């Protein structure tokens, strides 16, 4: 895929999202990747909230808001319904936040993967409950301050490894991505759409409001996440993991952490510990 091959048509505009929101960018890229033969299920989160209030309807394709815990079950049902109606050509896509995926939605997700219907479940990960004002989720990284883990007590549990969790379900296809690498992401979305079964894509989507950085840095910060090893671009297919992108330069994580107010309180020792974890994972 090349930039110039991407559809020019815009299918998502004028949402109430923050300026510089990577999640909004994620929606835009997703629909471009799949085209208008796709329908979207979005549970309670930033994306649904900034897209669902009458009379504003920023999705130009079919979209439905779902209860917070219910995304994957809805995907399963829609997929079965379309199958019954001979419309397997329509892509059934979930756009769920980290909270809606790793916490309250994990059961429905686990169940839907087990059930085996065809859908694409996309988890856009901004590492906290942003819609309700920056509370910690199961995907908030160690060290981050949120409104429920305010410093000095900050988040003291590691980030749940959703990729390993869905891989443990023997899902036919899963991948990680980041909004700073749009082509990589869109290719993965297209790949997922060609699988006849449940698929999962986990995309890191930096949030200027929740992480504490200026809106214009959204892309740069996603890049730093990958380059520092805080995030990886991978695929899981046929039971195997694979890295799809290895950054040319590896940056120290301190640079990444320094860009965001949520990490402001970390001591050099704590930062060193995070760096150590990253280095250990690399080996």
């Amino acid at each position, binding site marked *: 895929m090349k930039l110039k091959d991407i559809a020019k048509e815009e299918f998502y505009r004028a949402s*109430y999202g*923050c*300026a510089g*929101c990577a999640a909004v960018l994620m929606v835009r890229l997703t629909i471009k990747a799949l085209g208008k033969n796709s329908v979207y299920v979005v549970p309670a989160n930033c994306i649904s909230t*900034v897209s669902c*209030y009458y009379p504003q309807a920023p999705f130009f394709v079919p979209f439905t808001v779902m209860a917070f815990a219910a995304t994957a079950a809805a995907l399963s049902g829609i997929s079965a319904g379309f199958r019954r109606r001979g419309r397997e050509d329509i892509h059934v896509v979930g756009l769920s936040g980290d909270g809606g995926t790793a916490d309250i939605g994990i059961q429905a997700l686990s169940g839907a993967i087990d059930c085996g219907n065809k859908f694409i479940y996309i988890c856009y990960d901004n590492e906290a409950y942003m819609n309700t004002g920056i509370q910690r989720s199961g995907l908030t990284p160690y060290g981050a301050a949120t409104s429920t883990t305010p410093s000095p007590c900050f988040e003291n549990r590691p980030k749940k490894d959703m990729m390993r969790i869905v891989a443990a379900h023997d899902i036919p296809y899963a991948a990680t991505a980041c909004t700073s690498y749009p082509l990589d992401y869109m290719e993965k979305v297209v790949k997922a759409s060609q699988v006849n079964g449940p698929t999962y894509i986990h995309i890191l989507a930096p949030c*200027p409001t929740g992480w504490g950085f200026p809106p214009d840095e959204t892309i740069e910060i996603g890049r730093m996440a990958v380059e520092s090893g805080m995030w990886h671009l991978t695929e899981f297919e046929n039971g195997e993991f694979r890295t799809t992108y290895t950054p040319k330069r590896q940056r120290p994580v301190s640079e990444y952490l320094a860009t965001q107010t949520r990490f402001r309180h970390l001591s050099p020792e704590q930062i060193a510990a995070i760096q150590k974890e990253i280095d250990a994972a690399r080996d």
Partner: protein
Amino acid sequence: MNQKRRLEEVRWHGRGGQGAVLGASMLGSAVALYEGKYAVSFPSFGAERRGAPVQAFTRISDHAIRTRSQIYNPTTIIVLDDTLLDVVDITSGARDGASILINTRKPAGRLPKIPDSLNVTTVDATEIARENIGVAIVNTAMLGALAGVTGLVSLDSIKKAIASTLPEKVVDRNIAAAEAAYKKVGGK
């Protein structure tokens, strides 16, 4: 509603993240904690995000405030960002004689037309905030200006409210901004 119990109703206009809600709150606590009055303050809530035009409100009275309804007819309107003048009808519902305080570097004359029945004051709070606080957060400067142009609250109470609300390390700078704005609009 009840004429004998006159309510002062203040509407704040700002953009998400500019501090309108905190401004409304500091005004309320200033009169309630330090002037023996009653006050309530509350934001308007929407699904909008940072950057969106937002409102906040302060209701002030000499008597206990029991009403929980919205403010439709403000007696004072505070505008934190003059770019809002193009996109929001800031005078909507204003009572006759209401005071309007706008943060702008432009003189009143160069602003969009505002009905004559309203008393407009402008102040370059952004400049004052930049100078005194170092960032363009204008709510405390606007509170100082408010004390300067209306009898709603004293500068002294505003200073106390700032001191009891903001993090210690920024208190002095914000008090300085309030004072500067107070003076700028002719308060004494």
